[in-house]
């Protein structure tokens, strides 16, 4: 999840297609809104000239709300590429950029599973606009109704698009701890979404689950021709994490139980997160979708970097507590050997250490 979003314009070009991509001469380039570039990934950020140029265009694009009616901008700007990662399993990869009016909070990976009678949506995106774009993407693939929307956890980049599906009256499935967390954090999430997205947040709102699952339990739903297992976990990334397995293709939708390239985020319990990861590794699956980042590496080795990251934080934080290093100093000392391995490390790492420290000091 992405809680803290200063404008980082240099990471925004996902929504821009630039015909003359390597030129700095902005007057000669054409800008097309509404077509996605291939996902740039974290590592292409060193392509400085391209990003500098694209960020200029992003700024120009940022002025569009002043001259076009908002609705029109919404329709034009939410570019939405989907990939069929396994038969009937479609994923849209979110952006690493901080959320902004330009990207509509399209930060988390979201997607859907299509059965013979029903569609299941796994996470609805960071705004109503993203939810709508996801729904349009579903309609481009199938006319089967959306019977289920699974909310993987309480973070706003994963659920604010749910309202876009209400017309289809789906069962909205969340962890048993989700309603309480939404009640507690919802006001703040709505306020900051409006602050960061402005008019682009229009229509986004908190939607409570219609069905909840207790930690440690599973539930199987039939989509017609394929069954899908939904599992509620003990506290890990948050205290309300759900995962989904499409049993017919062995495809695991992890939500933020797995980060690839993007700094993993800890919002609940580091020992719990490591325990859940150990369980996840045992699953024999053929395909997986992380909450952030791509699905290119083999399973379960794709979990190794995240596991090393949290194991390092665990070890170093325990040592810092033994050495009576205060929290204020610990956040500046722990885990920095990992800094080069992750996107957005500066934004999230110290908060992870804070969460780990305040948990482990009571061991």
């Amino acid at each position: 999840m992405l809680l803290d979003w200063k404008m980082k314009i240099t990471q925004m070009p996902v929504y821009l297609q630039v015909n003359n991509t390597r030129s700095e001469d902005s007057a000669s380039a054409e800008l097309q809104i509404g077509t996605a570039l291939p996902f740039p990934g974290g590592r292409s950020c060193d392509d400085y000239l391209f990003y500098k140029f694209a960020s200029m265009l992003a700024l120009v694009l940022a002025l569009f709300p002043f001259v076009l009616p908002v609705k029109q901008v919404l329709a034009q700007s939410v570019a939405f590429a989907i990939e069929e990662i396994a038969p009937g399993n479609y994923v849209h990869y979110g952006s690493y950029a901080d959320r902004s009016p330009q990207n509509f909070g399209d930060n988390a990976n979201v997607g859907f599973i299509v059965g013979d009678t029903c569609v299941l949506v796994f996470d609805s995106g960071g705004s109503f606009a993203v939810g709508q774009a996801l729904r349009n993407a579903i309609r481009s693939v199938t006319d089967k109704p959306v019977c289920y929307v699974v909310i993987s956890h309480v973070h706003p980049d994963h659920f604010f698009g749910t309202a876009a599906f209400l017309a289809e009256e789906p069962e909205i499935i969340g962890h048993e701890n989700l309603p309480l967390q939404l009640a507690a954090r919802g006001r703040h999430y709505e306020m900051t979404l409006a602050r960061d997205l402005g008019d682009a947040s229009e229509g986004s709102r908190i939607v409570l689950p219609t069905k909840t699952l207790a930690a440690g339990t599973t539930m199987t739903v039939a989509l017609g021709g394929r069954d899908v297992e939904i599992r509620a976990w003990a506290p890990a990334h948050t205290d309300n994490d759900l995962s989904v397995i499409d049993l017919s293709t062995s495809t695991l939708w992890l939500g933020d139980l797995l980060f690839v390239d993007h700094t993993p985020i800890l919002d609940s319990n580091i020992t719990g997160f490591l325990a859940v990861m150990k369980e996840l590794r045992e699953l024999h699956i053929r395909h997986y979708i992380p909450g952030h980042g791509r699905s290119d590496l083999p399973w379960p080795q794709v979990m190794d970097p995240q596991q090393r990251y949290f194991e390092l934080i665990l070890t170093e934080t325990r040592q810092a507590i033994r050495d009576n290093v205060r929290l204020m100093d610990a956040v500046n000392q722990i885990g920095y050997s990992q800094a080069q391995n992750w996107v957005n490390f500066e934004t999230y790492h110290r908060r992870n250490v804070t969460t780990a420290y305040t948990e482990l000091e009571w061991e």
Partner: protein
Amino acid sequence: MKLRTTLFSALFLGLYVTAHANPNPEPDHTKIPEWAVIKDLMFGDRVINPDDREVIRVYLNTRADDAATVPVMINGLIDQSPTDYIKTMYVIVDRNPIPTAGIFRFTPDSGRVKMETRLRFEQYSFVRAVAELNDGRLYMSQRWVKAAGGCSAPMGKNVAADSMGKMRFRVDDQVEYDKPMLIELQVRHPNESALASDLDPDHVPQFVRNVNVDYNGDPVMSGEVNYSLSDNPVFRFYFVPRAEGDLNVKVEDTHDSVYTQSMRVSEEDGVAAQ
């Protein structure tokens, strides 16, 4: 046409960048409307020596990464002598629902005035420390904190009922009589925020409102606090053991629960929780 478009774009780019370059610069701490009200209510027309970092100083990391857990250290920089000492330290977060995060009282026997704790920030705000000396003079210093949502965030670490109010001490140094000794007190408590609204409207948020510390009956430090403190509140402060004795802590919360814990202190045997 091309050129005009370019110039036009450049102009607006310039405006855009200017307007968005630093959307939340540090404001002038003397011109905060909330502070004007707080100052009036708490100190009336008394003079507060502003920005006096020779008497009291606020330390924190420039970046606040978790608005629900912002470590803050406030040090008094004058010696606590029987004739000249900091009597009260007010810790104020201008824009929190309850701006007075803590009122801590000290004595000459505190040795040195220090309070390290962790605060919640609901909005970008100054945190101010006002020191009141025994003769009534007031000194203040402040730091700007960019963190928001800390009071709305619920407690992630659900405190089991059987560990509620459990306390721990952490001590760095050997015990030496008549020498200020730094001690950390940790309290297991959710310190529920009134803003982290429960689904149950009748629920009274349960947070710590008082902490009292004495040594063999003589006051060392006391604090009136609230949910501006993070969950599992932590207090790090000094006291001076003059002889073997017991450090006694009493914590009260808004549900009128009272928790106590003592620690035996001696040069021979060090410290031991009791």
